[in-house]
Structure formats: C-alpha cells, structure tokens
C-alpha cells in the first residue's frame, strides 16, 4: 500500500470540479490550488469529461471523491468498480481517493444518496473489514467523509466521532471532515457541533469540505446550493486550526454559479484561518429560524449529468 506522505501534503484551497465550469477552466486556467473530481463522473468516461480531467490533472493537483462506493452496504463490494477507480486514480495522479461513511443502496439498487448507518460496534467491525478490502485493491489508504444525516437511528450506540476514530485506528484510513455536514447533522440531532468537534480525531484528517445548506421548517438540508453559512465558517475556523491547515475544498452543486463566484466564496476561507472561535456568532447561527424557501434537495447529483445539448449541433441538410 502506498505510504502516506502525499496524504499529509497541504494542497491549499481547492474547488470541486463541475461540468458547467469545464470551458472556463480550460480557457482561463484559474489560480486555484487544486481540484476535486467526482470519481464516478470520470471513471467510465470515453468522452469530454475524461479528456477535461486529464488536461486539468496536467496542471493542478487532483483528488478523487466518490459517491457510490457504498462502504457500509450489505451488498458485496464491487471489485470491478474498485479496480476502475484505482486505474483512474493512477491515471490522473490523484493525491488521495475519498468517499463517504454511508451506504447508497442494497440488493443491487443504487439510491445515489448517502444514507445513514447505525453506528454500533458490530457495524464498525463490518465496515472496517470492508475498508481493508478497499485499501488492498486501491493500494492506498482510503479517505472517508462524515455524511449529512437527517435521522438518528435507535440502534446507534456510538457517536459519529467515536465511530470514525475507531475506524481510523482499526484500518489506517484517513478522514475528510465536512464542516458543513457537522453543522447540518448536529443541528438536526440537537447536538452541539463544538462537542462533536471536540471528540473528532483530527490527527487523521487530510481534507476539509465546505458547502452551503438550506434551512427547512424544522431542520437543515445539505443542499450545496448557496454560500457557506456564517455558522459553518466559524466551525471551519476551529477545524482548520486543529488540523494544522488541512487541504480545504468548496462544493457547490445546485444552482451552480459562475466559476469566479465559486472561487470567491472559497477564498473567504482565508478570513477564518486565524483567531478564536466566535461562540456568539455560532450560537446565533444555530438559533436562526428557517428560511422561507421551499425545502431543497439533499445530496444534489444532477450536476453530475453533463449537458450534451450544449455541445450538439444539427448539420446542414445538404448531405
């Protein structure tokens, strides 16, 4: 298995690579530190997405982030998927490969959602065994992200930070800490995100995620369709300092604005790298009332579907 020096490398501030930004990136080569590509968007691509990623990988550090590994599923691991993931990672020189601590489907069906696991010792042992299998096939440590959750399961006996710390200890995997997901899950569970972060195994974190969320009438939905909230920025301040400046990436997946706007939002991270956590600001964010907007979609994925229409033409009828 690949040793981990590159995993500890601090890449700086990166942007999630999205289809709608391809033309801009290839034209402008923006001053972004690195890109994160959704693995499933590229691992089978014989067309433009694969071509674009290859071009980008020649100029920027690239990280792969998956949404369909389904590490917690009762279905057998898809070894063909994992082999192709490894080939993609090697092809683009991915600094690391990440996915989520979740399951996405069972019985051969993929919901394309990041569904919650009961956090128990039994499930921990099962997931740890699967992480080891994945790491053997990938030939490198797997990086796993805490998902957003909307349910607390009666069967759970472990807190998520405890579950993740044990998973790291048993497998040597690394973690991607999504600060927005901490805010969303803790709010929905009625927990204090500071308590969550106090228990989090920061020594295993190689990457941080930032994103926007939306408040529903009674809970928060991880919509990735707007700027990062002030409460999440405060949590980022804490997380960034405790990780010693982990590579940080902004995800914007719904109503994706122009690249410059996404990049500008990312660069706001610089404002929150120093200083003390503003508890009053965080508390105010946690107390804030629901938005008037209709509840957004959790885990948006339609951005993964390329616009074929935008690159299609009808030739003259002379032929």
């Amino acid at each position: 298995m690949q040793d981990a020096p590159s995993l500890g490398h601090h890449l700086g501030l990166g942007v999630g690579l999205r289809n709608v930004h391809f033309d801009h990136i290839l034209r402008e080569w923006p001053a972004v530190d690195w890109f994160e590509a959704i693995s499933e968007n590229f691992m089978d691509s014989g067309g433009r997405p694969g071509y674009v990623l290859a071009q980008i990988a020649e100029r920027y550090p690239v990280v792969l982030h998956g949404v369909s590994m389904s590490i917690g599923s009762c279905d057998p691991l898809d070894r063909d998927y994992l082999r192709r993931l490894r080939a993609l990672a090697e092809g683009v020189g991915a600094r690391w490969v990440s996915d989520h601590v979740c399951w996405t489907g069972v019985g051969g069906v993929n919901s394309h959602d990041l569904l919650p696991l009961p956090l128990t010792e039994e499930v921990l042992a099962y997931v740890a065994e699967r992480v080891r299998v994945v790491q053997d096939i990938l030939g490198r440590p797997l990086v796993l992200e805490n998902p957003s959750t909307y349910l607390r399961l009666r069967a759970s006996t472990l807190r998520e930070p405890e579950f993740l710390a044990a998973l790291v200890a048993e497998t040597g995997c690394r973690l991607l800490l999504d600060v927005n997901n901490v805010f969303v899950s803790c709010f929905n569970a009625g927990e204090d995100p500071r308590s969550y972060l106090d228990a989090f195994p920061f020594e295993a974190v190689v990457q941080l995620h930032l994103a926007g969320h939306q408040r529903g009438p009674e809970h928060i939905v991880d919509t990735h369709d707007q700027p990062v909230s002030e409460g999440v920025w405060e949590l980022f301040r804490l997380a960034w300092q405790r990780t010693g400046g982990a590579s940080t990436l902004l995800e914007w997946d719904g109503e994706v604005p122009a690249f410059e706007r996404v990049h500008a939002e990312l660069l706001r991270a610089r404002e929150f790298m120093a200083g003390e956590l503003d508890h009053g600001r965080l508390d105010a964010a946690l107390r804030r009332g629901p938005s008037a907007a209709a509840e957004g979609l959790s885990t948006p994925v339609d951005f993964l579907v390329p616009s074929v229409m935008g690159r299609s033409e009808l030739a003259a009828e002379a032929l």
Partner: protein
Amino acid sequence: MSESKGQPSPPASLRDFQDWMLGALVRPEGASGPELDVRVHPPARVRLGTYQRSYIARLGKCLAGQFPALCHALGPELFDDFAREYLRAHPSTSHSLYALGRRFPAWLEAQRPDRDAAAAQREAWIDFMVDLADYEWRLFELFDGPGPEREREREPTADCPDAELALQPHLVLAEHRFPVAWYYHEVRAGRRPSVPRREPSASVLLRRDYATSTFPVTALHLRFLTCVRERGSVNAGLVGLAEVLGRPLAEIEAAWAAQREGVRRPWIEAGFFTRARPRTRR
C-alpha cells in the same frame, strides 16, 4: 467475522435495516419501522420524508438532464410523472448516473396505452415521444462513450481508396418516424417548437472533438452506410447495397462515383469514415 467469497458478511440487523430503508425510498407509501429514533424532534417520519422526497426529485432531475427535449415536449410536470413511474419500475443499478436513462425509451414504449393496437392506429404523439427519447439517449451515449479523438492518425483524406474506407466505428445510424433531431435542436436554440408531423427521418450521429453532430441523410444513404458497416469497407458496402436493392453493381458504383464531390468528400471531411488499415510509416 465470517468471510464469504473474500468479503465480510454483514450483520443481519444491518441487512434488515437497509432493506427497510431502501424500500421506504423506492416505494414510500406506508413506510414505517422501529429503526427510527422517535425520541428526536421533529417526528422521525418527517426526517425520513427528507430522504424520500429527495430520492425521487434528485433522480428525476438527472433524467430531465438526459432528456431535455423530451422534458420540453411533455412539460416538466408530466415528465416528472413519467420519471417517477420509470424510477419505480427501474431503480438505478449502476454506480454511475449516466446509465439512469438507458431503459427509458423502451419503458415509454412499453407503457403506451395503445400498445396492443395496430401501428397505424396508434397515437402519433406517443410515437414522437418514444422516438425523441431514443434520439436523446443515443446522443447521450455518444457524448461520453468511446470516440474517435484518439485515432486521429486513422482519419482518411479525400484521396483514400474506397477499399480502405471503413465506417467510423462510433458512428450512430438512426431512423425515426419524426424529425426528432430538428425538434431537439429547436429546443436547444431556445425556441418552442410544436410537435412535428410524422415524417420519416434518417440521420448519422457522430462525435468529433468531443461535440456531437447530427447529419440528416436520405434513407438510401442510410442503407448504404449500413452496408458499409456490415461489410467492412465502402467497396464491399457498394456490393452489399447492390444485393439489397437487386441492382447491377456497376450501376451502384456509377452512382457512387457521381457523388464523389457532393457526398463522398463531405462525408470524409465530416468524419464518417476511418482508414480500414493504419497508415504505414515510412
């Protein structure tokens, strides 16, 4: 922990939970279960609703992204209804969302209320929707499938002999009952086309430099190109066409020769063909 074929076995309780929750997403009516922690506020059912609502809406948006012209033709509400029923019948079984719409055109055809009627008695607008879905799926597959971009050295020039001209393997030859390519590109242009009248159309779909193009061709040209594909070269395709049409080969070859500048050259320049044999290096 026991191993099965080199993979760990899941706890039984986890399997029960996942079967239940996935069922609650795919078939949400009447979903309930003891797995939900009813001590949280708001009630667990509301939170399950977040997963349920997002599941169908999320995949419906993906399907609309794969079939934008069909979505335009049906209108978003009716399209969503079809998408909901389709996803219930054919939930995703792939790690990739790109495969989501693969069975959609055939599913639409199978769902038509007049499917048992004679072809002439069937509703024209349903034929159009099925054809449009078929066209859009073929374009989608062409867009991200294997393409000719890495085989530039095999691009022929106009002086390439017919015996060395083979059909570009990624080319799509399509026939539809309506001018669906025209409709699709009207939508692309931001116009609001009406459902066109029935008018058989033949077309060649190809990709070049990672963009797709649709070339309207005559029905006869489509038969010829099909022969070229089946027989392996233009020369052999001419023989095949002569057989199909029951005409003398000399007549077919003369007709092809007469189209050397009007058809053959534009087809080569457009990328219809590849060299059957790689060029030898000097």
